[in-house]
């Protein structure tokens, strides 16, 4: 077994996913500490080759590049088959995968293929002696669990979005790009994608620097309108609590919380969200939290850095107008 680190680089329709570069940055720091190489695995449809140089600029020494239409649209079977083969050939010590909804499926599936351990959703990964120790939140983020993969290799970790810093890209970095071929042909793949309807509403929650989110307090689907306006002024993504999603006011892809997405933006503006523990689990690590709620006892105020007790239908438009005046 070598000291190398593999990083699976996620992209969708040619757009790289930021957490993959965060993972390359983490891999680079670990590899520098123990003297190994960083290999980025970039498997997708024809036309993704330019991302190989990008992966190198973020810290990869080598890129395994597969361009084939069977690898489009992220399907688990062809991705896991190719990644497992690449790992078997190179025998790296560690595989890092961004903990997106795709990565959280690929990591455990790869662990079965290679009969090893996968630690999901790590928020920290530290070298203690010779051993990597991962920290991950459990029980809706109320407990932090430290765990490791003591013996089997490779150790697989999925890294939580925005938990690790994204390095500054260095476009002068040079690396090697190695072409690889898919393992499965179309005939070997059971799952066929027949349609994809991209969520409307602009900015994706996972990568958003600012999120405006609504809960039960918005009162109905039309109650999201002032939140959308605020989001537009801020270039923010629109989030929601489970209560609002369950009520059918807004689609599931906007849900933040334990059964939705985990986000970590610079600014999270919670409007009419009481702040159940399950919601907190999905947004607690936001850098700054602003809560707007008419109930002064709402638990969200315990978490918020700034609390505004008031009617969101007055406060949110006022905030939008003030920001529009200030930011233009």
């Amino acid at each position, binding site marked *: 077994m070598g000291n190398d680190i593999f990083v699976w680089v996620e992209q969708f329709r040619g757009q790289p996913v930021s957490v993959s570069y965060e993972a390359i940055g983490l891999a680079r720091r670990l590899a520098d500490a123990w003297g190994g190489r960083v290999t980025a695995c970039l498997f997708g449809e024809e036309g993704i080759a330019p991302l190989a140089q990008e992966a190198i600029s973020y810290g990869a020494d080598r890129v395994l590049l597969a361009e084939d239409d069977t690898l489009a649209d992220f399907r688990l079977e062809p991705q896991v088959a190719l990644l497992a083969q690449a790992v078997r050939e190179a025998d790296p010590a560690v595989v890092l995968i961004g903990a997106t909804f795709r990565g959280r499926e690929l990591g*455990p599936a790869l662990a079965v293929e290679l009969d090893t351990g996968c630690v999901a959703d790590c928020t920290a990964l530290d070298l203690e002696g010779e051993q990597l120790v991962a920290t991950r939140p459990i029980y*809706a983020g109320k407990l932090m669990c*430290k765990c490791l*993969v003591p013996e089997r290799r490779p150790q697989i970790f999925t890294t939580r979005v925005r938990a690790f810093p994204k390095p500054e890209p260095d476009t002068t970095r040079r690396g090697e790009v190695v072409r690889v071929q898919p393992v499965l042909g179309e005939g070997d793949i059971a*799952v066929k994608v027949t349609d994809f309807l991209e969520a409307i509403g602009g900015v*994706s929650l996972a990568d958003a620097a600012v999120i405006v989110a609504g809960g039960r307090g918005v009162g109905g689907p039309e109650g999201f309108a002032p939140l959308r306006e605020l989001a537009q002024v801020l270039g923010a993504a629109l989030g929601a609590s489970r209560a609002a999603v369950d009520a059918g006011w807004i689609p599931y892809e906007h849900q933040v919380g334990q059964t939705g997405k985990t986000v970590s933006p610079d600014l999270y503006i919670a409007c009419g969200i009481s702040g159940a523990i399950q919601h907190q689990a999905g947004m607690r690590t936001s850098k700054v939290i602003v809560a707007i709620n008419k109930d002064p006892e709402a638990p969200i105020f315990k978490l918020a850095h*700034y609390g505004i007790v008031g009617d969101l239908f007055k406060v949110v438009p*006022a905030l939008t107008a*003030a920001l529009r005046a200030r*930011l233009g």
Partner: protein
Amino acid sequence: MAYRCIVLVKQVPDTANISGQAMKEDGTVNRAALPAIFNPDDLNALEMALQVKEQHGGEVTVLTMGPPRAAEVLRDALYRGADRCILLTDRKFAGADTLATSYALQRAIERVGSYDLVFCGRQAIDGDTAQVGPQVAEKLGIPQITYAETILALRDGEITVRRALPNGRETVKCTLPCLLTVVGSANRPRPPSARKMIVYKLAATPLEYPELLQKWPEFETEEALDRYLSERDLRIPVWSAEDIGATEDKVGLAGSPTRVLKIDYVVLESRESKEIPPTPEGISSLIRELVQDYIL
């Protein structure tokens, strides 16, 4: 055509009620001190399976792995319409991580026999790993559809499913058998039926017989109770590691490549929170502070 459905469910501690007292001195979680509930997404998985059965015919088998008291979620599944239940329990399973858990579930599913569809909730609220579903599918060597929200079509050995992905909705087709992990927005789980509660309230695993005999001393012996329950299809079978032909070094702690070092309770202290009045001045001062702190 009728579909043989297997639903994997888990009894989980209610994370809404966890506190520092739920921690044991050695830093592990004292599950026994927490209220135990049916994992929420698993109820959606069960509902999806019940709807397949209602629309196409077939049967729904519910399987759980856990301590003896996990029989509670199996009875709940019977109240909601499951045809039969199996409890997978054994001290040898203790300490299992997701890999060892999926191995045991794979062996149990194979012992159930042939199946068309395996359903599970997208994730459990205690571990939050969302790993067991994908790993069971890999172990079984069958394709999987995660984030399943709606079954659009089911015919000719093929299923069409709409997935609720964080970035949109994707429609996929897949051959059977396959495994689905079901999201919370998929459906509204039916409540337990009063009629079925009357029928199944006696349903029990043999591990519960000693307790039942105290309640119904008229049965006198476990054998008599067992005969009575078996004749009425109220006996919930219990499978051990041996029953599913599991290799010892692949289950429990021995079969787990990951190890927990320690668990810390996150003290949710109140942040230094600043109250902003809901006035134009208050809002301007908030914006000014956010700009000064480079947040905006």
